[in-house]
């Protein structure tokens, strides 16, 4: 007769030797995880599967199931810790979902989505980690590595090769390749190895497959799985007269205006929107400067030069509530791919050696803003009150949030509109 334990109040049977997460999976109970994989030995390093077991927090992938155990997993306490863990994994690497081949198939991105993560809140590390493109069939992009060691285990336990290992320690920890050159090319890794396709994120990807399935139709695009817990931020209350329109300003810093385009995609609802919203300074109406203080400031794009800093500070000063809109404002996004590259190299690539450059030379006109050493998310420069994630956030998300505010309600974004990119 099999024994049982309880997970979030549900009685779950297990067989001797199973870990808690294995018992949960057999019972179709989802415990968030990244480094756990049913085919390989447990690692216990990502800590995402941490549960409260008989009152004490433990990794459920390394803790054996025992009769009568009481496991708490899907609780606000545990899920907020997991949300912090997801944030930590994002800030310590260079995770740019909008430009990542793995977007939509990435377990880290999916975990962030399911855990209701809308912002990173901690400062990004922007580490400099070397990419290895030497192999004809497999790319190693260390920027995206989360040290789950699945490739290490798959190579050892399934391929019998020991191609990968973890080197260094603390923030200098790196995924190392076992070959004479230190690169993948002469490592013995082949396209069909389990290690080549086991990566839960986009650190190890097979070449020439990246976009075979278009974004929007990928595994987690189609089925993100049930939300573990959704709790977006709360907005400060706006003091307004009854019937008074909310005054909104918008701008794009280092961004592509895609978020503005998405806002316009609410289409005919714009007519309804202007009944309750008055636009002030925004490229949508071409008002270049604030005519008065505003209720809401929507900021798209990260901070890449001194002009951005000035604009952003002005917005903070003139807007009661500041909302970071889209990937670039929230974590630097695509423009921050340049972080870690010396400014001179950047300027020379653009203005001296760039394709089709006439009159090569780094511009020195005093009118021009200086570019910053790093592109920063806006919350690292000013206080941000709310984060609206996505690349871009869907039109419905803008509609939702603005109409919520107009009706004096807390924004209540549904799961499918709150996607971290």
């Amino acid at each position, binding site marked *: 007769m099999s024994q049982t334990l309880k997970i979030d109040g549900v009685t779950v049977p297990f067989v001797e030797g199973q870990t808690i997460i294995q018992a949960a999976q057999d019972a179709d109970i989802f415990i968030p995880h990244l480094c756990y994989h049913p085919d390989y030995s*447990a690692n*216990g*390093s*990502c*800590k*995402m599967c*941490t549960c409260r077991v008989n009152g004490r*927090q433990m*990794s459920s992938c*390394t803790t054996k199931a025992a009769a009568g155990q009481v496991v708490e997993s899907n609780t606000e306490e545990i899920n907020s*810790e997991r949300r*912090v*863990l997801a944030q*930590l*994994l994002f*800030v*310590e690497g260079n995770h740019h979902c909008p430009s990542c081949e793995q977007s939509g198939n990435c377990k880290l991105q999916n975990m962030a989505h399911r855990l209701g993560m809308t912002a990173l*809140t*901690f*400062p990004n*590390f922007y580490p400099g980690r070397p990419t290895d493109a030497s192999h004809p069939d497999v790319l190693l992009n260390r920027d995206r590595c*989360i*040290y789950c060691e699945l490739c290490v285990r798959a190579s050892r336990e399934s391929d019998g090769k*020991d191609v*990968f*290992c*973890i*080197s*260094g*320690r*603390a*923030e*200098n*920890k*790196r995924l*190392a*390749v*076992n*070959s*004479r050159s*230190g690169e993948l090319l002469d490592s013995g890794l082949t396209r069909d190895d389990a290690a080549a396709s086991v990566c839960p994120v986009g650190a190890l990807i097979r070449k020439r497959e990246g976009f075979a399935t278009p974004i929007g139709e990928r595994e987690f695009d189609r089925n993100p799985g049930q939300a573990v817990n959704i709790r977006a931020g709360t907005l400060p209350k706006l003091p307004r007269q009854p019937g008074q329109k909310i005054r909104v300003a918008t701008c794009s810093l280092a961004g592509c205006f895609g978020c503005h385009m998405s806002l316009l995609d609410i289409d005919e609802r714009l007519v309804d929107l202007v009944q309750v919203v008055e636009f002030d300074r925004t490229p949508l109406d071409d008002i270049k400067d604030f005519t008065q203080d505003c209720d809401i400031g929507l900021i798209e794009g990260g901070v890449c030069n*001194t002009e951005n*800093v000035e604009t952003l500070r002005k917005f903070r000063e003139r807007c009661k509530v500041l909302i970071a809109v889209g990937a670039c404002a929230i974590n630097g996004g695509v423009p921050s791919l340049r972080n870690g590259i*010396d*400014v*001179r190299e950047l*300027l020379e690539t653009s203005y001296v050696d760039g394709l089709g450059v006439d009159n090569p*030379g*780094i511009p*020195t006109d005093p009118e021009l803003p*200086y*570019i*910053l*050493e*790093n592109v*920063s998310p806006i919350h*690292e*420069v*000013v*206080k941000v009150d709310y984060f609206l994630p996505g690349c871009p956030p869907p039109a419905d998300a803008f509609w939702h949030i603005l109409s919520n505010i107009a009706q004096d309600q807390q924004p209540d974004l549904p799961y499918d509109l709150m996607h971290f990119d």
Partner: protein
Amino acid sequence: MGDLAVSTASRSAAGQKLAEYENNPVNVLQIMRQIQLQAGCVDADAIEMLSDGLGIPRAQLLALVQFYSFLHLEPRGKYDLYLSDSITDRMLGSLETAEVLTHELGLSPEGHSEDGEVSLSMTSCTGLCERGPAMIANGHAIQRVDAKRAKEITKLITSGIPVEDWPVVWKAIDDTIVKKGPLLGTTLTPGAAIERAMRLGPHLTIAELEVSGLRGCGGAGFPTHLKWETCRSIDADQRFVVCNADEGEPGTFKDRALLSQYAEVLLEGMTVCAVTIGAKTGYIYLRHEYEFLRTQLLQHIEARREAGLLGRNILGHHGTDFEVYVYMGAGSYVCGEESALLESLEGKRGIPRIRPPFPVTRGLWGKPTIVNNVETLCYAAGILEHGAAFVMHKGNEPGWKLLSVSGDCARPGIYEIPLGTPISEVLAECGASDVQAIQVGGPGGELISESESGRCLPFDDVNTGGSFIVFDSTRDMLDVASNFTHFFAHESCGFCTPCRAGTKLMVQMTDKILDGHGARLDIAQIRRLNGVMTQASHCGLGQKAAVPILTTFEKFPESFHQRMEDVDYKPAFDVDAAIERSREIVSEERSS
């Protein structure tokens, strides 16, 4: 040295050491450490040779070099200097020492001289806390390196005098034992404890330990008899005794004194353990920084072998064999954690294992293993020779503990105190005045304000593995917390997410406050992160890493308030710093 010379030196060292250790992969870390000391690096060429010679994949060897602080891929200078960056060294002026050395020797910000002759790095506590600022120079421990001594060192280096020929008095680490109890004050008879343990047999030996109340002195305070009993009772063909001499807790140096003056007692204790649990092999895992104790320790082992107290047929008992080997660490605080220590002993990176199973059931090479602190094993020897009465004190309560007292006091050194001694008593004995705070148990221990000095020392009120650092009222407690926070980030093994990323964020947030950019939101973030690190980290390091900053905030809020404005949010972002590079480029372009 030129590239060719480096490569020749490392290849020749690799060849020698491989031969010396008979290509035995078990000794990989020992071999690497010796190559480092001899050739100044373990470079790609050496890794290549080791990989062929030991049959270990290259990447795993690279991983070892990049994990341990004292191993390097790139060559270190002929003068290879490490300055201890413990808070106790800082209090004695180590930053000034670093400045003098950097300036006088013309070192780059990374600590290298132009000719490559000198390398200077900061390193975690070297265990010379009462005689700092301390330095490790080519493996030699150098004490009291103040600004004056730093200038003398500069002269010796520029005149090409090898470290071996530097003044002997700089290297004479005499142990300041201030207060003796039974362990430090009793001369034990070699072999007497082993003899009695053999006579009593395992059951009664362990019962004696139980009566004595002996608990692990490394800081955990786990009852020693339970450990030994569990290990003994598990069915296995082999067992090991491991002495944890990886004394890395900043502010601790009592094991250093035991290893240098009481090595006999330690070996006696290890042998008592071996005969009780049935182990044939023992290891002393000695931290790299204590290289200066190694030769002497080996001599003690040899002498005891000759006296029939180690080796085969101990005390004439046929079949009672026990060999002890000294195994050197290579620079990693985490290796003081028993399961990480065993990983390191097995020649791997020091990553704490998933527990359970604990080492007593599955330890070294998967066999039941006792890992005990130096002090615990020494007490075990005393208890077995004289009975549990050995550790009784007034009121017939059992138990003593060694303290390493350092910081702002007149008489720093080693104190053997009865368990339950009030902190105030130690303060009075060590001549501490104008006390502001005491850090008990190292960075992960407890920060005690002067007003709490009525609290009692180990184990049950304020616990400590031995570290006791006194701060007087002139010290800035936020500086202290920042030093501890940096220590944890530097020593995190990086295995688990909360500790790897969390310790670095703690450093960023602490420094942000220290730089005057702190706000209420930062404190909230520190608390939020601490919640996750405490609950989800894989080992004690990550669980404790945010404690210094938070306790300091609770007990010494003024050290925060004087640097913070009363606002919710303040950015660390500094626009001038962020465009410094751009300005430089534009001005270069304009003038060209």
